[in-house]
């Protein structure tokens, strides 16, 4: 590897010092190196890995996996809130394995490297006339990272990203390279579509897409109870619909995305997309009104009454993805779709009765059922309810109070978000749990891809 500028300067300084016969003073002026701590986006998870490795291709990856003495955790963008990544072993990144590999125009399918940044996928697919069937409301993830945790958007007619996989390549702990799909090693394929990176490294993914398309976003603020009363038509009559409930108020933002042929609207400044600027008002209301709940509710309801949003039209990936520049921690559970309204009402009631400290909105979305063994959406149409807490505030009391409600409604925790369940609980939530754990045991009997969190999830000692 070529020397960087600073490496060059440091080495020249050392040589000059030695030549002068008084090396230490000059060498000591070089910048003191930091301990390179890995953190997730919220800062709640961190580790100091013994090694960080970025292979350039599958051969290099397989050779390294056979040779490394460390346990291995693959990392994507670090956008998971749960402890799926932290390791004192080796941190593996696919940052050098990115981009579109090939596409099939007739089937509307495309194959990408696992390390591809999702923010780059929309433009790449547009160039070959394709668009993803659905996307999440952020695109900071990498493809393999999003698939590992069953990341999803909203829309009862659409599954998670993982449900659109038609084939993938997996490099195992032993260095075996497995190409699998519904016909070739289907048991590995099914398990690897949502795997938390516990089966090996997903280096290539073939996705089912559709023709490229545009979306129009409409956003309005309405009474939460009115939206819940009208939920069936909102969910069925919009391609994508979600709401963001403003905690400690009577209102929620209703957001619908529908296909359109209209011309794109001017691009907004990133920070104002998706109602981000209203977070400022919510934070201020919390700061000054926390000790006077009645006044805070009145203020938030007043602000909600003035809320007004421009419609946005753009290429699908531009409208799906929003800028999220206020960091937070998050818990999300998926409950059976029909239980969504009751679960949300109980959460809101609990926040109000216990005056739980939070000012972030609650996100409320729908996802179509899939057939992936440990997908949160396995076997049932689902309603995903997400609660958030500003990264600087403790989440334990708030999330702890709400998690009990999720359990009551047979909720399954999002693999990339905070929760407190382990193998003892998870096995009963997933009818096909053993199907996954048997594949994991067969592919990685030594637990090379496990950290403490995953050992707890899968009951591996």
């Amino acid at each position, binding site marked *: *590897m*070529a*020397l*960087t*500028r*600073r*490496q*060059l*300067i440091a080495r020249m300084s050392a040589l000059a010092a030695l030549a002068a016969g008084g090396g230490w003073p000059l060498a000591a002026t070089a*910048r003191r*190196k*930091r301990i*390179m*701590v*890995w*953190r*997730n*986006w919220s*800062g709640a998870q961190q580790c100091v890995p013994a090694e*960080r*490795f*970025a292979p350039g291709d599958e051969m290099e990856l397989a050779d390294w996996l056979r040779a490394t003495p460390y346990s291995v955790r693959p*990392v994507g*963008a*670090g*956008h998971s809130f749960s402890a799926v990544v932290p390791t004192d072993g080796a*941190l593996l*990144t696919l*940052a*050098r394995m*990115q981009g579109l590999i090939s596409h099939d125009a007739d089937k509307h399918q495309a194959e990408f490297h696992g390390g591809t*940044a999702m*923010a*780059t996928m929309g*433009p790449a697919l547009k160039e070959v006339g394709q668009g993803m069937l659905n996307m999440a409301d952020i695109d*900071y993830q990498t493809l393999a990272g999003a698939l590992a945790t069953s990341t999803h958007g909203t829309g009862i007619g659409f599954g998670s990203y993982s449900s659109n996989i038609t084939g993938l390549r997996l490099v195992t702990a032993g260095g075996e390279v497995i190409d699998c799909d519904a016909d070739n090693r289907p048991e590995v394929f099914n398990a690897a579509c949502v795997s938390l990176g516990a089966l090996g490294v997903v280096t290539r993914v073939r996705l089912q897409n559709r023709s490229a398309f545009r979306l129009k976003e409409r956003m309005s603020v309405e009474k939460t109870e009115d939206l819940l009363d009208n939920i069936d038509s909102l969910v069925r009559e919009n391609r994508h619909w979600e709401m963001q409930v403003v905690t400690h108020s009577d209102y929620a933002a209703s957001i619908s995305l529908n296909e359109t042929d209209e011309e794109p609207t001017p*691009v*907004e*400044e*990133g*920070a104002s*997309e998706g109602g981000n600027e209203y977070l400022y008002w919510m934070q201020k209301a919390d700061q000054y009104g926390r000790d006077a709940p009645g006044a805070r509710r009145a203020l938030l309801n007043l602000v909600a009454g003035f809320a007004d949003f421009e419609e946005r039209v*753009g*290429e699908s990936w*531009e409208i799906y993805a929003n*800028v*999220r*520049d*206020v*960091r937070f921690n998050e818990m999300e559970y998926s409950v059976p779709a029909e239980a969504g309204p009751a679960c949300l009402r109980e959460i809101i009631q609990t926040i109000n009765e216990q005056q739980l400290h939070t000012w972030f909105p609650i996100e409320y979305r729908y996802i179509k059922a899939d057939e992936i063994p440990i997908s949160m959406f396995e076997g049932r149409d689902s309603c995903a309810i997400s609660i958030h807490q500003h990264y600087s505030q403790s989440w334990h009391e708030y999330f702890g109070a709400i998690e009990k409600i999720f359990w009551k409604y047979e909720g399954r925790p999002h693999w990339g978000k905070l929760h407190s369940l382990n193998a003892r609980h998870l096995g009963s939530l997933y009818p096909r749990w053993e199907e996954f754990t048997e594949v994991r045991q067969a592919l990685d009997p030594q637990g090379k891809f496990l950290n403490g969190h995953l050992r707890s999830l899968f009951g591996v000692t």
Partner: protein
Amino acid sequence: MHAGKFPQRLLLSGLLACLPLLAQAGEAEIQGVYERSCKACHGTPATGAPQTGDAQAWAPRVAQGADILLDHTIDGYKAMPPMGMCMDCTEDQFLALIEYMSGTSLD
């Protein structure tokens, strides 16, 4: 939504001409890391990230000094993920990337 590639490259070439040390210290390597890790945000105005070659946007950031910029890069800052999507980068590479994007020497 996306900035034209040609003018941006022309601008970068001009900026790099002002940073001869960066250019001789593995410009191709740094550009490769930039393409795979930084460009998705720092080359897309709608992300809100300071854009590569936008001296006006970078000036107040560079004024904070190399240590603060390294803090934000390694720890993450606002929408920016920790390590800026380059989980294998060294401290020196992060500094070189900041110089590359800002067009300014951090010394």
